[in-house]
């Protein structure tokens, strides 16, 4: 056995707190170590060459790299040793950066700890065995979950690469939140005008299968081979037959709130979300319709010329297989009900940014006339409160929602363009305009539209007669200020949508502390998730504006195509395996496995039938939970065998 140990200085990242020369010197004294060297940047080409040269000249059969986290460079160094004929799974990484230099100040102690860790890895290395890489086939088809702008863009980009893609949307139409916006910053483009061509293309593209009014219920399988169950709720209107003639709407006697207009206007129980909706078909709301079980009213069905209405439509379960998944389940806004100091939703003229967006839209509840919700009075004075619930770790959201400065500025500018003699006052903590042309847009609002910005938070909103009394502060003049407004718009922040939470649970995706889906790496793997083959785009990972969402969707599409374009892909080699002699068939591992990869099977031994655990190699992700849980040490994980781990522990104990 000839082991080579390579200690990286990582510039000063490691060498400032770890005496790398001493660590390398110490490694030479350990059993089986044939070579031990230090280099400034082991991951750089010259560093890699040192290892390759040693493998060749010193006939090494194991390599240990003491450097950063294996998450960072394990693939790099596996490739290095594979290049020289060694099995990549015999590489051992000692993390002396994240686990030593970055967390310690004392060089003496750091050096000592690094030595111990190197020693334990040398012990493990000697026991490591070559592993085979497994390959599985791939379904050349992708699933995109959520059809807001992120999902639409991802689906279009996958379809544009020539692959089949299924787009699943929870609500009756695609378009998401962007379809509710009147205009978009910083160009004041009409939102519908730039979105609807993409929506139409989704409906038209032969590579895209759109399933609206549906949800993903279950996902099994693994990268390249996800088995997915989609539940499609009945629409009660046959999409292909509906001609959108609108004859059904006037006769429908049921009036309910219109969600598309943020409940500021009514709609019927049979309706279409908005004129540009895709699928271009009406839908019946089963909760309010009087025609669905029991059948009390059938007025719409009676007038429907093309006989498109079917009260007996049943939910449908669609099962399909996909090679990769893109999650684009979007966001919701922070509930106004949580903001007690701003009236908790009980002051009718205190509204959210999204409500204002509908109010000012010509297609909205006041057909663009800008009348306030309470009494229909034309709006003259608006106060915008930025960070309504954001940047407030004590009570609400700890983070900055990123888009609110811009959308409040946009709305104030739009308002002033509509109501020339009106006033728009923005209360802000900081103005954050970190996007292309955003600062210029903010300056334009102030300069051209004379939008007033007051630095300070509003503490309370009080209904005062027909108006709202705003109790705020101007921190720049060091005065508390009060003013009256016709309408107060709360720039409520972005929170993960229910759909994001649901799909995270179905897919077992890791979530960050704020409930957004966690990226595999915040900078370098922004659309990858903890599950190989599952990607994410848009606000499901956190607040984003439209340009960022669109670019992210593009990357998620490319990453999905990287997988579905292949005929075979490699899967994890460090998976669990069962020693059938030791297994007592207790089944603890079956319940422990988060990936449903273990089942109990019958096996014949000494003429009798016994139950033993069996691992589905394709489903196993190598998490090690079963190996830890097994009472009889019957399950082990390739690459992390008990004997290896025990050798490491023993080495550490000797120090």
């Amino acid at each position, binding site marked *: 056995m000839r082991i080579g140990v390579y200690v990286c200085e990582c510039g000063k990242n490691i060498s400032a707190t770890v005496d790398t020369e001493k660590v390398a010197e110490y490694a030479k004294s350990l059993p089986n170590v044939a070579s031990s060297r230090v280099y400034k940047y082991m991951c750089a080409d010259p560093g890699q060459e040192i290892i390759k040269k040693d493998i060749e000249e010193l006939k090494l059969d194991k390599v240990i790299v003491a450097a950063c986290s294996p998450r960072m460079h394990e693939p790099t160094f596996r490739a290095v040793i594979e290049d020289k004929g060694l099995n990549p799974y015999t590489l051992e990484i000692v993390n002396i950066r994240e686990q030593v230099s970055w967390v310690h100040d004392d060089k003496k102690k750091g050096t000592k700890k690094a030595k111990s860790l190197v020693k334990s890895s040398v012990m493990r290395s000697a026991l490591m065995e070559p592993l085979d890489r497994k390959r599985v086939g791939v379904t050349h088809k992708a699933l995109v979950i959520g059809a807001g702008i992120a999902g639409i863009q991802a689906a279009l980009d996958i379809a544009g690469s020539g692959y089949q893609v299924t787009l699943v949307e929870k609500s009756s139409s695609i378009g998401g939140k962007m379809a509710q916006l009147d205009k978009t910053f910083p160009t004041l483009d009409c939102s519908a005008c730039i979105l609807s061509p993409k929506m139409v293309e989704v409906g038209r593209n032969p590579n895209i299968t759109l399933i609206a009014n549906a949800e993903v219920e279950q996902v099994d399988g693994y990268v390249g081979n996800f088995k997915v169950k989609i539940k499609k709720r009945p629409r009660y209107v046959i999409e292909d037959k509906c001609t959108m003639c609108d004859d059904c709407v006037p006769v429908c006697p049921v009036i309910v709130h219109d969600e598309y207009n943020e409940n500021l206007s009514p709609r019927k129980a049979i309706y279409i979300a908005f004129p540009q909706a895709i699928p271009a078909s009406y839908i019946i709301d089963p909760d309010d319709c009087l025609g669905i079980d029991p059948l009390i009213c059938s007025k719409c069905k009676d007038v429907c010329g093309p006989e498109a209405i079917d009260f007996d439509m049943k939910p449908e379960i669609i099962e399909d297989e996909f090679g990769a998944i893109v999650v684009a389940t979007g966001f919701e806004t922070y509930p106004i009900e949580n903001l007690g100091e701003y009236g908790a939703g009980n002051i009718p003229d205190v509204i959210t940014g999204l409500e204002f967006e509908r109010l000012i839209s010509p297609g909205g509840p006041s057909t663009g006339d800008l009348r306030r919700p309470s009494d229909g009075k034309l709006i003259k*004075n608006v106060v915008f409160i930025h960070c309504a619930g954001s940047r407030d770790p004590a009570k609400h959201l700890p983070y900055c929602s990123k888009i609110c400065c811009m959308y409040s500025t946009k709305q104030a500018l739009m308002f002033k363009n509509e109501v020339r003699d009106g*006033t728009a*006052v923005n209360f802000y903590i900081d*103005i954050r305009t970190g996007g292309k042309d955003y600062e210029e847009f*903010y*300056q334009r609002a*102030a*300069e051209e539209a*004379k*939008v*007033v*910005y*007051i*630095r300070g938070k509003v503490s309370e909103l009080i209904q005062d007669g027909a108006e709202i009394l705003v109790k705020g502060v*101007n921190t*720049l*003049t*060091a*005065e*508390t*200020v*009060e*003013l*009256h407004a016709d309408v107060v718009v709360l720039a409520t922040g972005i929170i993960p949508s229910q759909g994001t939470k649901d799909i995270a649970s179905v897919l077992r995706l890791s979530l960050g502390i704020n409930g957004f889906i966690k990226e595999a790496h915040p900078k370098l793997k922004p659309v990858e998730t903890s599950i190989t083959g599952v990607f994410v785009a848009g606000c499901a990972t956190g607040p984003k504006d439209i340009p960022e969402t669109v670019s992210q969707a593009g990357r998620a599409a490319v990453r999905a195509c990287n997988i579905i374009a292949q005929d075979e892909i490699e899967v994890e080699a460090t998976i669990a395996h069962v020693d059938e002699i030791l297994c007592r068939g207790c089944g603890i591992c079956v319940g422990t496995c988060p990936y449903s990869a273990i089942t109990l099977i019958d096996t014949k031994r000494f003429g009798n039938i016994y139950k033993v655990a069996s691992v589905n190699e394709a489903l196993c992700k190598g998490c090690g939970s079963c190996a830890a849980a097994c009472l009889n040490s019957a399950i082990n994980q390739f690459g992390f065998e008990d004997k290896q781990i025990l050798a490491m522990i023993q080495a550490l104990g000797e120090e």
Partner: protein
Amino acid sequence: MSYDYIEFGETEKEFTSKIEEISGQNIFSCYQCGKCSAGCAFSNLMEKTINHTIQLVQLGKKEKVLQSNTHWVCASCLTCTVRCPREIDVAAVMEAIREYTLRYEPETIERLDLPEELLKKIPNIALVGSFRKKSEL
């Protein structure tokens, strides 16, 4: 007093637009970075910082603006003007506030009683300058 009621009534709007008109500046361009106050050689003698004054003009707070000595302490050195990132001629705004007072509320200005001895000694240029900035001449 550290309280204010904000209102954009006729009085407020008129004051703001008058200052804008006299100075030829867009007051709303100011985003309150404070560079004008930071570089002003005289800010130690001003009752309100320059950016504070500008904010008050944005809000139409005539009385608070005129009560402060800020615009009178300003010596028109224009350091603020050349350094303003928003291209506001800040000194012109100070001038406009002086002018506003001289034109519309001259009774609020204290008359100077300068001794003859001083008048002889001080350079003409200072006298002319001072009278033009601080009186109706």
